[in-house]
């Protein structure tokens, strides 16, 4: 089985978010970047397929040179090869278009992406890859097994989960649950050394158009101070929620 894991290069979860150029652009200054958490769960599941079922695992990112350390980290975790599509992404659709092209060129059976990137939270890339490559698609995937061509998967739904059967080729939007938190791997020295020898292929982008344009960012207004209610006056809390906040 040939697996492609899509890796989004995102600000670390603790990052303060700032904007530059008159609030029109994300300011990457001083920001630490990581593998998108949803993608890391997917990559870890891919490692299981590699170790238990002999799958080959390629990781891919659409981005500039600055994303290569993130791809190297994925190689250090255990992916066999990496591809970087050499263009700075403009919107979800253009990323999906580039990735769909990589999928078609490489003949991948299974594409593992994250349900959303924690930067722009578009949540559209996995589904669009499936649509563009005519593959089956499971979003919010929290369980995945592949036997030959048949797939058994679990999808998180609002208020529960459902078990689905389908077949390859398949694209998933993965998230925690796909593997447990404790299964995540921190690259060790040997992995890091080996990653240096692995192929990181840079491919040029295909022509594509953006469908959406990001024009401006705003930060939420600063919050007013918390109203504290004393422990022996909880009636006051009920009142505040009812009369002032009007939420009960």
């Amino acid at each position: 089985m040939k697996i492609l894991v899509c890796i989004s290069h995102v600000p670390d979860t603790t990052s303060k978010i700032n904007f530059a150029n008159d609030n029109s652009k994300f300011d990457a200054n001083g920001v630490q970047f990581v593998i998108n958490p949803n993608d890391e769960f997917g990559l870890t599941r891919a490692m299981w397929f590699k170790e238990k079922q002999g799958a080959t695992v390629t990781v891919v990112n659409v981005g500039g040179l600055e994303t290569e350390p993130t791809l190297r980290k994925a190689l250090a975790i255990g992916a066999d090869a990496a591809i970087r599509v050499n263009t700075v992404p403009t919107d979800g659709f253009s990323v999906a278009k580039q990735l769909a092209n990589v999928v078609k060129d490489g003949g991948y059976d299974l594409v593992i992406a994250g349900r959303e990137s924690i930067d722009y939270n578009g949540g559209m890339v996995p589904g669009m890859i499936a649509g563009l490559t005519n593959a089956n698609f499971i979003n919010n995937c929290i369980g995945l097994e592949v036997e030959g061509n048949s797939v058994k998967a679990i999808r998180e739904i609002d208020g529960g989960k459902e078990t689905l059967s389908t077949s390859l080729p398949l694209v998933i939007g993965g998230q925690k649950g796909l593997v447990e938190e404790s299964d995540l791997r921190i690259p060790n020295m040997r992995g890091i050394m080996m990653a240096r020898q692995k192929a990181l292929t840079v491919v040029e982008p295909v022509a594509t158009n953006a469908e959406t344009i990001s024009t401006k960012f705003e930060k939420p207004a600063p919050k007013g101070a918390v109203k504290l209610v004393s422990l022996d006056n909880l009636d006051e809390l009920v009142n505040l929620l009812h009369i002032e906040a009007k939420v009960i």
Partner: protein
Amino acid sequence: MSVLVYTESEQGKFKKVAFEVASYAKAVANQLGTTVTAIAMNVSDTSQLAMYGVDKVLNVANSQLDNFNAKIYANIIKQAAEKESTKVVIIGSSANSKYLAPLLAVELNAGFASNVIEVPSNVSPFTVKRTAFTNKAFEFVQITTDVKIVGVSNNSFGLVESSGSATAETFSPVLAESGMKIESVDKVAGKVSIADAEIVVSAGRGLKGPENWGMIEELASVLGAATACSKPVSDLGWRPHGEHVGQTGKPVAANLYIAIGISGAIQHLAGINASKVKVVINSDPEAPFFKAADYGVVGDAFVVVPQLIEKLKAFKAQQ
């Protein structure tokens, strides 16, 4: 040219979110000077939609649609959009709507903006405001394609009633190949899901162990709320993964979020910050959650929560 809205249902009845997205669609239709058409699947009585500004309902009746399938549903919405020569499609932010949206976008060659929280700030160029960076920022996005899809964030617009009537039309689209089969569904009946809830009661590691969740469940049931938890609580197996909220868990955009024994780490706050009113109950006055909350009680959850349940029961009894 009418605005098309996908009104979600469950077991033949509209979900509340259907009325919210219909209200939103009406506001957009007013901006564009057009009407609203809703597409519904297997809903027995669609008349309620008129109250939220819908002019026409395309109701699809087909038992093969009883279970949601993203590909088939997306394809039906596409057929409806083409029939109505729609330029703007409105959907919600449930797991199912987010699942079908990108498939629909590809089918319609439409640009898609998710997590939208306000009516378009401009219709030419078509510009919407959405949340990004997991609620750490807002982003204004222009959708430049001929057909546009807007995913409205839960509880962001609310219900807006209008008067009028809706015509109902039977719509019999061709069903696409699903490529997929549902083997089983595991869903607790009668429990409010985090996505649908207006109130969410959430608890963290401060609760000490899974055996202490009885009072959390009770508080939630008094309020008609969904229950949620912080990440370590689900990692430890105290609560199911489906309850984990935050940046790497489910997003919460409730009207009221009550956090009990949760410290308020940045990854937790990011995921719940879209909630309108936040209450924190924590024994440590220095807990970062107090900086993010609207109301707070400094105290031991094991003392505060049982009392709060009694107060709320008394309050509910009076209502």
